[in-house]
């Protein structure tokens, strides 16, 4: 019996050696990594990150970060993306490193990245901590507003060595936002119920960038709360009595002609209205009675360049009068989609 205990101890001691050796290996690793020139940057959550002077292999841990990399034209350096990365469609072809909340650390390390991009809106501190401990530089963005999203684009551009592209892109997006603001200046904000999830009904709190995006689109959330994704009861919806009900849906229609809405919107609105009109209580809401349903591309939930497209689209749905054909020329004087920014337009904006 005593011998058995001794044996157990032996087996356990072997494991301890394993644990020791792993920390030893890590310490060694940390020492031998920085052979190429690095520069120390502070990320948006205040961590200092040693980024190689020349970033060649990027892994993104959230869909919006991959979208930003594409928008900056650095997609050739993108060697790994998280699940759910589907924008732009080409990003789906990149190798996956797992879910944003619990990515496979080993898949990340196996991609041999010299920079990992994370974001506070979906990734966990734990993941970034572990990567840092393993000597993999991980830069975290922390956008809470549209301005914050633009700042993140600038920061990422700076970190990956595409600051030129980032400045141009941000200037373009900012110009579109400014144009939108000018247009909607005299409009009263529309009080909307933004539906994040239908069962259970979830909306947005004040500190989310969706709430901020609504402001830019000439709207405001009917619900004010510190919780980010409040679950709300139907009773509360009745009490709030929103002007519009807004759903976020994936619709990749062609919306390049400025004034009209994406092709899929009308049927989607009709479908939602039909559904709501068949439900007790919902059908008596004034927004439903008047057919005040708006559909916005689900890009509005993603803090990336495409978000500005969604804001413009929502603004057109909520304020059709302002966007009547004669006033359209004003907004479309700024190129609308980042996919196709002509270089002349970029230099003219700058």
């Amino acid at each position, binding site marked *: *019996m*005593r*011998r*058995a*205990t001794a*044996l*157990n*101890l032996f*087996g*356990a001691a072997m*494991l*301890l*050696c*394993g*644990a*020791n*050796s*792993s*920390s*030893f*290996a*890590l310490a*060694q*690793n940390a020492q*031998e*990594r920085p052979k190429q020139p690095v520069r120390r940057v502070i990320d948006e959550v205040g961590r200092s990150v040693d980024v190689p002077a020349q970033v060649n292999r990027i892994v993104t841990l959230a869909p919006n970060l991959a979208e930003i990399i594409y928008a900056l034209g650095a997609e050739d350096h993108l060697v790994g993306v998280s*699940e759910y990365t589907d924008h732009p469609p080409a990003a789906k072809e990149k190798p*996956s*490193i*797992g*879910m944003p*909340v*619990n*990515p*496979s*650390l*080993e*898949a990340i*390390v*196996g*991609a*041999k990245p010299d920079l990992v991009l994370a974001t*506070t809106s979906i990734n*966990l*501190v*734990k*993941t970034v901590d*572990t990567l840092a*401990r*393993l*000597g993999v530089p991980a830069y975290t963005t922390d956008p809470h507003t549209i301005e914050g999203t633009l700042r993140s684009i600038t920061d990422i551009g700076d970190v990956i060595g595409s600051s030129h592209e980032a400045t141009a892109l941000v200037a373009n997006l900012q110009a579109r936002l400014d144009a939108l603001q000018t247009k909607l200046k005299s409009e009263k904000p529309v009080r909307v119920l933004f539906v994040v999830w239908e069962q259970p009904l979830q909306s947005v*709190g004040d500190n989310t960038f969706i709430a901020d995006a609504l402001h830019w689109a000439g709207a405001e959330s009917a619900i004010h709360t*510190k*919780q*980010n*994704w409040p*679950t709300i009861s139907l009773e509360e919806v009745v009490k709030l009595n929103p002007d519009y009900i807004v759903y976020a849906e994936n619709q990749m229609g062609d919306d390049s002609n400025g004034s009209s809405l994406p092709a899929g919107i009308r049927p989607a609105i009709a479908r939602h209205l039909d559904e709501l009109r068949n439900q007790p209580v919902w059908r008596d809401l004034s927004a439903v009675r008047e057919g005040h349903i708006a559909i916005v591309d689900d890009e509005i939930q993603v803090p990336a360049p495409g978000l500005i497209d969604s804001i413009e689209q929502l603004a057109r749905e909520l304020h059709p009068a302002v966007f009547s054909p004669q006033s359209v020329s004003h907004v479309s004087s700024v190129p609308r989609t980042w996919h196709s920014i002509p270089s002349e337009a970029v230099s003219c904006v700058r």
Partner: protein
Amino acid sequence: MRPLTPKRITWICVGLAAILFVIVVFSLEVGASPISVTDVVKTLLRGAAAMFTGNWGTIPPSNKLIVFGLRLPRVALAVLVGAALSVSGASFQALLRNPLADPYVLGVSSGAALGAIFSLAWFPHFPWTMQLLAFVGALLTIAAVYFLGRRGGQLDSTTLLLAGIVAASFLSAIIMFLMTTLSGRDLRGMAFWLMGDLATPPALRLRFLFIVLLIAIGAIYTTASDLNLILTGEREAHHLGVNVARVKLVVYVGASLLTGLAVSVSGAIGYVGLLIPHVMRMFFGSDYRLLIPASALGGAIALALADTLARTIVAPVELPVGAMTAAIGAPVFIYLLRRRLT
């Protein structure tokens, strides 16, 4: 059943340790990132050599990082947590004289999880708070379940299990309440964590965990012969000279410590504590002198295997290991139950 001799205990433990070794090597070889078996073996051998020579340069950095930095700590954690949960299950089964007792069923895991969430919500930056509060949560829950499970001064099997189920659902309700109302950044991963999650912890905590688990298992092991007597009846054990109160206290604190620590590093993982001691009893009999080390090794084998499956079957997406243990454990448990009935 053959008589239990020290020789037999030794050989069974050596056998189980050999199986564990094979499983550990196997799980070091598979993963989301493809590294050939020969490269893993080379990395391991060179790593072992480097521990003596200090020359790590011969190993490609990314292989070293994946094998030593990620896979080894994770497998080691699975081994430790599996052993802890399994021994804790075996202990509760003896302490409460109930074959269905296990940290998960008795609500002890939920209590530990609640303690851990408290610490994450209010003391996120203090070291060891999570472990400490998880331990306190486990201790309080098992005490509450123990007292609720008594009827007329006697421990009643059915009442005890019902008390455990009630405690687990009540604590889960509090956990849900906290997770809904506190929209803090660190609580977001909780849903995964509650299902059991073995993603790499810091190396320091692994060593600490190892030492404390060893002490707790060792302490429980010292009571093994007494536990055998207590299982035949507390009064009988008392008449045979066993200090029943002391034994129960040691086992109670030891098993709570094991559960609290396991939950604080890996979330609530079910079925290991329930199933492994039963499987071990089936093979090796119910003498606690053998059952405790056999359960420790068996739990280690089971969880290392379950976690390897969890991180590889849909790689690079990782499943919570708790979902894996439940998916395998539930049918196996039903099988054992039916077999015992017929």
